[in-house]
């Protein structure tokens, strides 16, 4: 690894741990034993709120998402509250807190009450293992990638609880859909990440960042197919709009959120963005080299680079949400099993072969760039070939209206002539 110029002076903002450590050590000398732990929690809360939650969650998350989607869809978006409508998310939050949180009479009250709480907890826990900078990771455990996967499988259960407990058939449809989607999309997602794991030979997120730094290449170039699969799967698991069949408002009212109102609904809505941000941060760490930027991290704070990469990824989520139409439930299932899963297996086969070749060459540095070129070409060829094999063809833009049958669309069996 290249030597870093990060010092342990308190004014070196490239590692924010210095400043908080300085404050805590000074406080420990004055305050009685134990108070410093409370102070540490308070500092952590205030700092993360000011540095991360407020700009990311409220301004970039809610506001940016609405304004950017508004721009993509040729409308203005919120522009009344505050300068440029910047205070719109805060106004929304106040409105949500004021609203009554209704519970249907026949609902399962206890489960319906705890479902939003269960939904929020993993979103916070996910950030524990993501490295913001060289030493800026809360829990640098050796299995952090698996930890991320494990914790991100918990919100599915919370959404299921929400959908089932409301005692509403549309909620139950949403719950059904989310559970079946979780089952379908978990396997290609893990297969895609396995590609990155096999290449780096580690399941620690810090280890992956160190790998990207050592070989001066991002995982996205070595494993482009894995990134595409990961992105599609994670949007499906997070219920982002092109694949949000669990709360498809044109089909099943609002899916599992139908009976929720007020801040209970607000928790689901806000944490949807929280999960998308966490998934973006994870993807930035695994595929875009985390807090490193080919040496720039010696001059610019690593956490700024990391946040920039996270939001770059988050912009992709917004982009797909703003431009793509929603898929049907059965199309989504077929896509996961017939398209993404085989591609993930192919990708794993290729990357394992490359890893074997690479280990025979004593992990020569230049070889990784050859692999990157080969993989980019192979990925495009694989996607194209597998799509042709499955009979998917790029749709020609129709110049006149056509019947469903002419367009090759789905017609139920009974209505076929």
């Amino acid at each position, binding site marked *: 690894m290249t030597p870093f110029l990060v010092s342990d002076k308190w004014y070196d903002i490239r590692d924010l741990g210095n400043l908080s450590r300085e404050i805590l050590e000074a406080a420990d000398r004055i305050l009685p034993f134990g108070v410093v732990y409370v102070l540490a929690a308070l500092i952590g809360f205030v700092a993360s709120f000011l540095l991360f939650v407020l700009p990311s969650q409220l301004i970039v998350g809610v506001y940016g998402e609405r304004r950017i989607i508004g721009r993509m869809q040729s409308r203005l978006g919120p522009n009344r509250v505050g300068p440029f409508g910047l205070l719109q998310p805060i106004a929304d939050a106040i409105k949500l807190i004021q609203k009554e949180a209704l519970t249907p009479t026949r609902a399962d009250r206890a489960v319906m009450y705890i479902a939003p709480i269960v939904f929020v907890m993993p979103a916070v826990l996910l950030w524990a293992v993501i490295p913001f900078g060289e030493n800026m990771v809360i829990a640098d455990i050796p299995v952090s990638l698996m930890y991320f996967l494990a914790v991100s499988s918990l919100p599915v259960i919370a959404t299921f609880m929400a959908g089932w407990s409301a005692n509403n058939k549309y909620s139950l449809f949403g719950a*059904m859909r989310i559970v079946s989607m979780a089952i379908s999309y978990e396997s290609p997602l893990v297969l895609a990440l396995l590609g990155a794991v096999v290449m780096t030979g580690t399941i620690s997120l810090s280890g992956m960042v160190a790998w990207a730094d050592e070989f001066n290449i991002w995982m996205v170039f070595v494993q482009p197919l894995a990134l595409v699969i990961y992105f599609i799967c994670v949007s499906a698991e997070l219920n982002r709009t092109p694949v949000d069949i669990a709360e498809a408002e044109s089909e099943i009212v609002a899916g599992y959120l139908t009976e929720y109102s007020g801040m209970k609904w607000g928790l689901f809505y806000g944490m949807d963005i929280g999960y998308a941000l966490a998934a973006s941060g994870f993807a930035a760490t695994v595929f875009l080299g985390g807090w490193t930027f080919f040496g720039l991290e010696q001059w610019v704070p690593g956490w700024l680079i990391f946040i920039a990469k996270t939001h770059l990824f988050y912009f992709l989520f917004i982009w797909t949400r703003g431009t793509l139409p929603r898929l049907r439930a059965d199309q989504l299932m077929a896509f996961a099993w017939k398209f993404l899963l085989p591609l993930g297996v192919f990708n794993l086969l290729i990357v394992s072969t490359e890893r074997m070749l690479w280990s025979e060459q004593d992990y020569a540095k230049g070889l990784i760039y050859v692999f990157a070129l080969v993989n980019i070409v192979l990925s495009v060829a694989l996607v194209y070939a597998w799509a042709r094999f499955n009979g998917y063809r790029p749709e020609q833009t129709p110049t006149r209206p056509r019947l469903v049958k002419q367009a090759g669309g789905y017609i139920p069996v009974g209505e076929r002539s």
Partner: protein
Amino acid sequence: MEGFGPSFAFWVLAALTLVAAGGVMVSRNLLHAVLFLILTFIGVAGFFVLLSADFIAMAQVIIYVGAIAVLVLFAVLLTPRSGRDNGETRWALPGILLAVCLAAIFLFVVHDTAWNTVDEAPAGLDARALGTALLTTWVVPFEIASVLLTAALVGAIMLTRSPEEEAEDALV
């Protein structure tokens, strides 16, 4: 296990796991039982973390909570009459008898085993060592297990496909 932290964590986890496991048994509603079961799995994962087996703890959460519990939820939802409670079951008495017998056996084993304690985790518990062991020493049982699972998967799909669905798939 020394110090306040690990002991505290142990007793909290033990209470959580036992209460949740009790909830699985006494809850009348099948879905509540599944949710309690999930809590039990998470408690067991916590015990693995306490034993310095990080990898197994994470695998426990991914497989049991992320996959098996979700599958159980799915099965419960797809089963007709799953919403009924299990109040009028006739198997309460045999069930209690079986539980008492099992508890007696477990108590006997726990009491009679000489439990070794170590100060720190033994080396070779990490994911790398586990993977090396699975793919070198134990590669044949490992591969046979995966083939068996794939065969079961294909068999389940073949058994549940109806002729209409096959006809529909052929057209799409």
